């Protein structure tokens, strides 16, 4: 494990901050405990704050979607998901795409 400091909030002094800290909305600092493999991966990222933000936002989005489905009483099945996975991977036929472009006045 990587040693950590307690959480603290930036107070406007960004001396020593990485580039992402200067971006709008990136104002809060946290120190966290990480397994060694995660720390090594982060060390290889060009912008650690951006990498962590992207990963956490993905987790937040998944959690929120679960809540969106639960509130509607939706219980998903793996078989159902697999059916859509296959359909999503199937391209729209070329003739249909061509007809669609013609309908939009964007014929090739």
């Amino acid at each position, binding site marked *: 494990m990587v040693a950590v400091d307690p959480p603290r909030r930036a107070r406007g002094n960004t001396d020593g901050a990485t580039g992402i800290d200067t971006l709008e909305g990136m104002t809060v600092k946290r120190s966290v405990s990480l397994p060694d493999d995660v720390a090594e991966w982060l060390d290889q990222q060009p912008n650690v704050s951006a990498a962590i933000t992207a990963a956490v936002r993905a987790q937040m989005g*998944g959690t*929120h*979607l679960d809540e*969106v489905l639960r509130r*509607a009483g939706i219980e998903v099945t793996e078989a*159902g998901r697999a059916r*859509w996975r296959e*359909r999503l991977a199937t391209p729209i036929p070329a003739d*249909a795409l061509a007809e669609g472009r013609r309908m939009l006045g964007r014929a090739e």
Partner: protein
Amino acid sequence: MSDEIAVVFDASALTAYIEGNASVGELMLEVADEGRQVAVPATCLAAAFASVADEIDAALLALMMSAPMIRLLPLDADDVRDTGKLARAVDGDISFGQAAIAALTHEAHYATVQPKVAAKVLPTNWSILDLA
């Protein structure tokens, strides 16, 4: 998450979510896992809000729209004429017209519980995901 739209939900797909249709949820999860988006045309959302039984269902619909992979599509001025033109085939229901325009523009799958009606506004052989 990319900006790529994988699927367009028409008004019937939104109503199906309120009714707890599992296929809608499974499709939303798959699109999210692919890092892509589900488009909801504005007129489809308005039609769905018009059809809800009560404010509880309206709140549920609003909750769905807050899902991270959902993208609300406005009705652009450039698309108004084509939307109305396509709607002629479905008794003037402009929500089908805008959903079709969105699917054609983004070359996306069209998700609905009314595939026969949707087929009237889409090219032959277009990908229609039947949620029924």
